[in-house]
């Protein structure tokens, strides 16, 4: 019994020290390697596993529950005022500029805008689907798209396989494209919505979605610093991807969830259920590359600037 007590005491005392030491060594080695190879400083696989193991889904669901709680009218100006100052909310653009209108922080977060405050640029081929910051844009080359400068992720991991074409030749980019005469290219654009931004999103062009894929993944933060640090982040996170056609070929639109903002709502798709309770699962989600898919009706059509959905708290 005495030996067992000593051994348990030893483990309790030194295990955290060992984990910290291992983490520091791993961080140092990874930093040196990145500096040697002049690469952006990104997470090692150990750091990535530790981060993915955090109970972020449980935290998000708790936050969602708290944010949906009724806020007494007398407290609303203080709570929402603090939030507005902290995250730069512009209430002059809101349809209801009075803080007292919003029953909960969740309702305040998804506040609608006044008619006419977001004119649509009709000369543009593609317009912004959301209020936010451009994280990255460019062409998708060699089956990879850039998350940020120098950090790539795979298009096929992000979208899943092409199953709607018969002409499958092993070249994912060519399989994806509708026009294969060499006149077109794949382009991408990533827009980050900060906590104070308007959290409803719109269609960037006229297009017809054919299918929707829901990837149940992690709910990692998509803060630009984390995006810089964690390669493949968009392929790890829970997301709803709509794929279809526009006048120039293939078109896809993905709403990627994040910590505390994992509930993606698409108004025309009631079957989409994101950020579902998975029990007290603490480790990385094992099925994050598996998705469920539904085919959309041929009548589904999105107009330019049309409101598509919103990111809810939780």
């Amino acid at each position: 019994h005495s030996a067992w007590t000593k051994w348990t005491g030893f483990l309790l005392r030194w295990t955290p020290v060992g984990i910290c030491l291992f983490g520091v060594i791993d961080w140092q080695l990874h930093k040196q390697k990145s500096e040697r190879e002049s690469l952006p400083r990104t997470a090692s696989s150990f750091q990535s596993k530790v981060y993915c193991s955090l109970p972020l889904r449980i935290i998000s669901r708790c936050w969602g529950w708290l944010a949906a709680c009724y806020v007494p009218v007398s407290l609303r100006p203080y709570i929402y005022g603090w939030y507005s100052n902290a995250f730069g909310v512009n209430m002059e653009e809101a349809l209801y500029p009075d803080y007292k209108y919003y029953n909960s922080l969740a309702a305040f977060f998804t506040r609608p805008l006044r008619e006419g405050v977001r004119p649509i640029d009709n000369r543009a081929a593609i317009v912004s689907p959301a209020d936010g910051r451009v994280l990255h844009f460019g062409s998708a080359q060699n089956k990879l798209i850039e998350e940020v400068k120098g950090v790539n992720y795979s298009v096929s991991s992000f979208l899943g396989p092409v199953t709607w074409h018969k002409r499958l030749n092993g070249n994912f980019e060519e399989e994806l494209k509708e026009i294969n005469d060499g006149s077109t290219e794949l382009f991408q654009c990533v827009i980050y919505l900060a906590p104070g931004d308007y959290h409803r999103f719109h269609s960037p062009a006229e297009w017809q979605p054919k299918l929707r894929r829901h990837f149940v993944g992690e709910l990692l933060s998509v803060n630009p610093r984390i995006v810089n640090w964690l390669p493949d982040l968009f392929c790890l996170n829970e997301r709803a991807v709509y794929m279809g056609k526009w006048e120039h070929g293939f078109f896809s639109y993905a709403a990627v969830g994040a910590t505390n903002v994992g509930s993606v709502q698409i108004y025309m798709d009631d079957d989409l259920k994101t950020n579902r309770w998975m029990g007290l699962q603490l480790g990385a989600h094992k099925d994050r590359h598996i998705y469920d898919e539904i085919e959309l009706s041929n009548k589904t059509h999105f107009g330019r600037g049309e409101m598509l959905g919103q990111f809810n708290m939780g």
Partner: protein
Amino acid sequence: STIVLLFEAPKNFKFTIKTGQKVKVGESLGVL
């Protein structure tokens, strides 16, 4: 939260934005 657009367009498609730029709904992202 993040929106990721991935689309096919003619090779002469040009983005009209800069990395880090703040954009609002309806503003141009690119032209043909």
